[in-house]
């Protein structure tokens, strides 16, 4: 009797996870698709200025209103998703690869190389992240790409550390020894036995970081260190609208809500990925 209940409970939990995965995974995919297809989705040209309709409130033919140059806010938010989301995705992917590779080398190889690379990552970790990113971004003259590079510089050590500790954890498992006894070389060992067994926690961290990265890229842009003015980017759109917060709040609320929603969606998706990959917790 008891067993039946636990099995049923397990099923419910499983179903709930599945349901969550479908909803949040679906939303995340939807947001990414929207960003990818942005140029086809915009009702108006996001860069066309028409001062006669400047700062129109939401409603009517411009759903989210217009900014002070008369550009359609909805179109700008949609096209802006491309810059913000893709640079965040690219950033997370790059950082995961670089940090992961360093972590695998350190954890698997050990020894002096490990100590050296870990000291280097310590140096990066010792800087207050955002301050360092601001410094790097301003030295490199702004631009979304440079903002992403600046953020990459401060985020790879985290991934190196997580990957390294995961590798250290499984390195002494008998199955690694058994694979060695089967004559598997270093590359096969890493590709077939190490990476698949450590990927879970690293991927979860990465997905959860997408939201953070979106915020940080938007933040740098807000400070004028990311996307340059004509480019529609959520952070810089908020920054440009900040003097009009009281008179025309939609100018700043539209991109702000876009950031908020996207970050929430990616964070929930990340949580769900964790539930799927690690059902124990």
């Amino acid at each position: 009797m008891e067993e039946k209940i636990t099995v049923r409970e397990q099923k419910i939990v499983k179903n709930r996870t599945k349901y969550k995965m479908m909803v949040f995974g679906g939303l995340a995919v939807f947001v990414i698709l929207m960003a990818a297809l942005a140029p086809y989705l915009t009702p108006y040209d996001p860069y066309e200025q028409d001062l006669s309709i400047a700062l129109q409130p939401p409603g009517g033919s411009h759903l989210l209103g217009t900014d002070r140059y008369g550009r359609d806010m909805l179109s700008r938010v949609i096209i802006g998703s491309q810059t913000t989301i893709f640079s965040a995705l690219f950033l997370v992917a790059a950082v995961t690869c670089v940090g992961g590779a360093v972590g695998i080398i350190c954890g698997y190889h050990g020894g002096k190389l490990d100590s050296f690379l870990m000291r280097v990552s310590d140096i990066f970790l010792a800087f207050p992240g955002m301050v360092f990113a601001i410094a790097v971004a301003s030295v490199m003259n702004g631009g979304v790409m440079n903002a992403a590079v600046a953020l990459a510089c401060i985020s790879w050590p985290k991934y190196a550390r997580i990957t390294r500790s995961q590798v250290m954890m499984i390195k002494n498992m008998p199955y690694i020894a058994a694979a060695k006894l089967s004559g598997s070389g270093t590359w096969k060992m890493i590709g077939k036995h190490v990476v698949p067994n450590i990927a879970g926690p690293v991927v979860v961290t990465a997905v959860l970081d997408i939201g953070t990265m979106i915020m940080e890229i938007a933040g740098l842009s807000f400070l004028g260190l990311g996307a340059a003015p004509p480019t529609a980017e959520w952070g810089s759109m908020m920054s440009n609208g900040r003097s009009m917060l009281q008179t025309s709040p939609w100018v700043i609320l539209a991109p702000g809500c876009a950031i908020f929603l996207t970050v929430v969606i990616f964070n929930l998706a990340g949580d769900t990925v964790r539930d799927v990959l690690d059902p124990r917790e």
Partner: protein
Amino acid sequence: MENILEVKELKKTFYKNKIPFEAVKSVSFQMKKGQCMGIVGESGCGKSTTAKIITHLTVPDGGSVLLNGRETLSLKGKSLRKLYGEVQMVFQTPQDSFDPRCTLGDGIMEGMRNRGMKKRKAKERMYELLDMVELDGGFASRYPHEVSGGQCQRAAIARALAPNPQLIICDEATSALDVTVQAQIVELLKKLQKEQGLSLILISHDLALVQNLCDHAAVMYKGSVVEQGAADEVIRNPKETYTQMLVDSVFGWESPGRRQPFIYGGVCPAGCGTA
């Protein structure tokens, strides 16, 4: 008969927080082809470390290992892979010795594929091996967490047998299993040893097992071999104080004047460990 394995003066020191710890101080023994050799000793005396040195999983600080009269510790690359065709190992925890993300069949075939065998042929051989260890062919597609410890250990033995090795080291291959399954695995090993002319090294806590199954036994204490000889003789008639205590603590013999306190984890009084 010639020696299949000759181990001389192995040494290995581990450093934990820069504090040296001599896990293996001086281990020397020889074994003949087709023999079964038992290595006994309490937990932490360096049995696994010795086994790992022989199989190149740990690099020793000194000593030599001769397999069929050839030095093996200096092997690298291709010749090291060849060594793994001759020496294999079975681990203590069966479930952990298979990659949780690969099927048992994949694990058994990995070595064959690495040695350049075609996929179809490797599969054939894999089913042959499963049959040899008395497992149904259906186990090939199961994951390690989907089978029992005993079944997993059989698969591990199949994997060890795959390259037709001359020597298999079983590092407490039965201690994670319950008594009846232990007996089955031991029977299996016995059978395989006879059929394939294998040489076996059995690392074990179980003195009775070693006495029954092994021709030769070595007793280790704190990183050194303190006594060795014919298994029956060593266990029935121990010469060294330490072996006597080990035997007493396990079998609880009450011969007058020889009864000693239980030693597992305890401190050995002066006089033992000095071969």
